[in-house]
């Protein structure tokens, strides 16, 4: 399998504080890669570096490389809006725009120049189907997205990310604000997603990483301690610190 994203000696500083230290990671295509680690270890920071959402933070300094399909994402010719279209993102708290469901999904395509009604309808349906939400909302597309349940909102956000036809979907603790039932639905959805997309997910929930991911990276204090097949990680981790963390012996 090809590597979708490769980072090389990635360092990231928030001002003087180094949040990421020499991260070398290869994220394979059509797999789910989970990032785990204790709070503050740099998971979210790493994730946000991949689609340059960290650009928004003042005082961030990045060295090293991030290659997306071999292209350095920090290269001057790369426009960040293009990058973010290719590498979508889903956040911890479901964040539907305060608009109708339809407009939420159509937001991205419109932004990128799709205005034909028919095309939009098509995209909206496709995206919602992709997020396993179509049947639940097809009769209320013109209702506010805020009226959906938390789990539905999160799936709608996934649909919204799909609407611009990305390659990669980054998810930062996408289920941590949801109840167990919604969580399970999203987890289930993810294994469908990986057939078409490459998924990178940050999760606090080790069981979740174990359940859904193909590869797992364990971060600690800004370092990537271990990166293995998930099965390997949760059965025979290479590093003592990984084992301590996943077995709850940490801290």
């Amino acid at each position, binding site marked *: 399998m090809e590597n979708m994203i490769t980072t090389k000696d990635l360092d990231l500083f928030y001002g003087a504080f180094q949040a990421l230290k020499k991260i070398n990671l290869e994220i394979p295509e059509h797999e789910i890669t989970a990032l785990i680690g204790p709070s503050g270890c740099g998971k979210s920071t790493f994730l946000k570096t991949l689609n340059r959402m960290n650009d928004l933070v003042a005082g961030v300094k990045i060295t090293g490389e991030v290659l997306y399909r071999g292209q350095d994402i920090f290269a001057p010719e790369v426009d960040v809006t293009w990058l973010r279209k290719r590498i979508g993102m889903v956040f911890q708290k479901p964040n539907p725009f305060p608009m109708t469901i339809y407009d939420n999904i159509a937001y991205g395509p419109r932004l990128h120049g799709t205005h034909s009604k028919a095309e939009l309808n098509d995209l909206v349906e496709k995206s919602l189907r992709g997020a396993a939400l179509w049947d639940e909302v097809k009769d209320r597309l013109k209702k506010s997205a805020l009226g959906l349940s938390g789990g539905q909102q999160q799936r709608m956000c996934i649909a919204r990310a799909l609407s611009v036809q990305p390659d990669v979907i980054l998810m930062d603790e996408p289920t941590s604000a949801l109840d167990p*039932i919604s969580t*399970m*639905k999203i987890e*289930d959805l993810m294994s469908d997603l990986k057939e078409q997309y490459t998924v990178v997910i940050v999760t606090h929930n080790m069981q979740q990483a*174990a*359940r*859904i991911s193909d590869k797992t990276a364990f971060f600690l204090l800004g370092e990537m301690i271990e990166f293995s097949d*998930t*099965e390997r990680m949760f*059965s025979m981790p290479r590093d003592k610190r990984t084992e301590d963390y996943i077995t709850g012996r940490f801290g």
Partner: protein
Amino acid sequence: MTARSTFETELEQLNLDLIKMGGMIEEAIAKSIGALETSDTNIANEIISADRTVDDMEKQIEARCLRLLMRQQPVARDLRAISTALKMITDMERIGDHAADIAELTIRLDSNKPLSMAQHIPEMADIATQMVRACVKSFIDNNLEQAKETIARDDEVDDLFNVVRDELIKTLSGESDAEKANQAIDLMMIAKYLERIGDHAVNICEWVVFYDTGLHKQTQIM
């Protein structure tokens, strides 16, 4: 959309594996008895090499069970299903081994009608085969009654073992040559294997009971 469909698929797969393994040992034991009765060394050799597959199957299922435990944090029925599988396969594998053991002895006996020395072995074999078949079926059908009945039948095999033993002792007492003694000992072993096969079938049934009731050998272990 049902939640956890991945997990369900995996459980389904585990079940299919078990059924497949059950089928394999059922076939192995039936074939080995057939080979013994007809002294067919070809089939016996087949059985011996097929045992590899059963062993592999065991490891495969073991791995799957551990993976499910590790990844899915099962509880209740799911946990029972996985632990049942994890325990049951040991017995299945042993039944497979014993089938191979019998096949090996069949090759060694390599003579006409050694069974004349212990006429009850076929009957024993018959019951043991039935028990294996029944235990696999009770598992597949999740049939508590059948499992319990099968457990009860173990006594028949045990009784027959003693009968066979007596038969063989009768053969051995008085004059006998080394060849005969050799055969008798081998037949004794076959009887022992059949008896053990019955035991293992019982064990499997006991896990079937556990899956349904949480009781293992009358003790609530879950």
